[in-house]
């Protein structure tokens, strides 16, 4: 049905457009700051464009080593973590989607219960310590390997796959694991892609568990390096002597350096975002509405 383009349409579009500009502006501002020099920033000269494009903040960060190392750790954890999560979630969701499996309901309900009850911070902390997670990069991979919500979403998707597809393969003598790999996975790529990207974003953004368990700053992922830099500046700025000190800190971790760090940690997401956008909409819809 086609509607006429009216005053209402124009005002809604303008309103949403204004919202969109507001939503993007902080990112834009940060990007511009990262290109500015310290003197530009302090003089109130960075608003829409810096006076000159200056890459020294980036150069500084990559020479200094912390960020480069953090980037390296984050990439490793994201790749490995996503792979582990994806394998465990896919196999589990597929098994749980089999209605005839004895004990399936028990396991499924037990998983749902965990979405409402948890041991809480301290018991989890003590357990992970016992499991030798202190100063161990696996702390960013294993304790967060399965997201119950993702598991349910995926199970719902598998429920929607027609059983005939699997049965014909079964007649050819393939076992269930082979069927999952050769038949089910290829027809489930939208949901697998969605999950892959969800997990990758989760792993990339991880800062809480590493903050609790990694004492060795050489193991810090990028998010934690960034957090410490921000918290540092924030804490000193909020001290009683804050304002006077502010000028001094700028030279250690200037705002342009901080902004460059923020940009570096957000870039991978900006790069994969168009793909997420493309897949997650379809993936979520299929996974959620069916079943």
């Amino acid at each position, binding site marked *: 049905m086609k509607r006429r383009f009216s005053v209402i349409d124009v005002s809604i579009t303008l309103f949403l457009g204004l919202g969109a500009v507001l939503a993007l502006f902080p990112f834009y501002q940060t990007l511009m700051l990262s290109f500015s020099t310290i003197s530009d920033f*302090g003089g109130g000269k960075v608003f829409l464009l810096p006076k000159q494009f200056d890459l020294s903040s980036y150069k500084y960060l990559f020479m200094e080593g912390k960020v480069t190392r953090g980037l390296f750790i984050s990439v490793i954890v994201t790749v490995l973590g996503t792979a582990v999560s994806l394998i465990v979630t896919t196999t*589990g969701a597929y*098994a749980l989607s089999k209605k005839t499996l004895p004990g399936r309901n028990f396991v499924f309900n037990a998983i749902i219960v965990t979405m*409402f009850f948890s041991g*809480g911070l301290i018991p989890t902390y003590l357990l992970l310590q016992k499991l030798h997670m202190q100063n161990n990069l696996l702390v960013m991979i294993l304790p967060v390997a399965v997201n119950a919500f993702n598991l349910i979403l995926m199970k719902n998707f598998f429920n929607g796959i027609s059983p005939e597809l699997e049965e014909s393969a079964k007649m050819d003598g393939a076992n269930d694991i082979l069927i999952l790999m050769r038949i089910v996975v290829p027809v489930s790529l939208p949901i697998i892609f969605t999950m892959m990207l969800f997990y990758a974003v989760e792993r990339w953004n991880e800062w809480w568990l590493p903050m609790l368990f990694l004492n060795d700053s050489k193991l810090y992922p990028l998010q934690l390096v960034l957090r410490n830099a921000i918290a540092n500046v924030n804490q000193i700025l909020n001290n009683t002597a804050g304002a006077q000190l502010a000028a001094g800190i700028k030279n250690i971790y200037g705002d342009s350096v901080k902004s460059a760090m923020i940009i570096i940690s957000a870039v991978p997401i900006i790069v994969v975002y168009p793909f997420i956008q493309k897949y997650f909409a379809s993936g979520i819809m299929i996974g959620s509405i069916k079943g």
Partner: protein
Amino acid sequence: MEAFYLYFGYRQNKSKRGEFLLAKLIQMMDRSSGVLRNPKNRLLKEIIRHKYFYILLTPVVIYFAVFAYAPMYGVVLAFKDFNYAKGIMGSPWNNFENFRAVLGNPDFIGAFRNTVLISLGRLVIEFPVPIILALLLNEISKSKLKRIFQTVFTFPHFISWVVLSGIIIGIFSDQGLWNQLLVTFGLEKKSVLTDPNSFTAMIFLSSIWKEAGWSSILYLATIASINPELYEAASIDGANRFQQMKAITWPVVKTTAAILLILAVGNLMNGGFDQIFNLYNPIVYSHVDIIDTFVYRSAFLDSTGFGFSTTVGVLKSVINFAFLFGANYIVKVVWKEEGL
């Protein structure tokens, strides 16, 4: 986000609608005993027939047993005087001493009050935004423009609070954009993030910035499921767009909103740890310290003892659960909506 998985997770059990967790637990036990009552060899046969599925299921079962169920045992710490050397098992019971300490702690009372106030603020201020956003997006007929808007509004969801709060702290710092603008217009500089009131406003605003677009996806999906013929019939009958929205779109959206509202109330004690922890500073503790941030600090910074912190966590879960049931009851009985 989580709410919406949950919502659909429950949706699939539509035929068993109206039951909730406890009912589910009972049902679960019934079912497993039902299986056991079957002739033994038949069950065995079924299990053998599914042997590969059990192999596939094993990693998930191990994961939840180790990382979700094993820590639940640690909850007994709430009733013990935790001693690191003796471990959870060996530490002595202390006759509810932890509970007395927690309930008598003014910082806990403050954190409890802040959590409730901030969560209620979120319900009033943040909760309606995605609904309005979805209704507005739905009114845009050019699909390309709609997709651009959706892309922009959803984007911040994927950026961590560490990064977002870095950006916010930068903008509102002494030399940041906000104060530059104030100075340009001849006004006095203002320290937004160290003033409890403006900090609280910033919590709501930044959370809308991050999540409103993402949350609106669920409402848009609900709206997309409406039969377009309804709109056509209504417009033939002379209903204008506002009337159509009120009579056709809103009733459908309302049902979804009711369920999300219950889940939001069931989350009342959470208050948004990631966001507040990354944004706050000691000056605003009195107004924005929530239970989760309090637990963290009492356990790792103030060393009040792990027993104390566990107790706070236990109290939080209990209250949360009560809220969940209460909200479900209100929506079902008072509001006459579907509920969980």
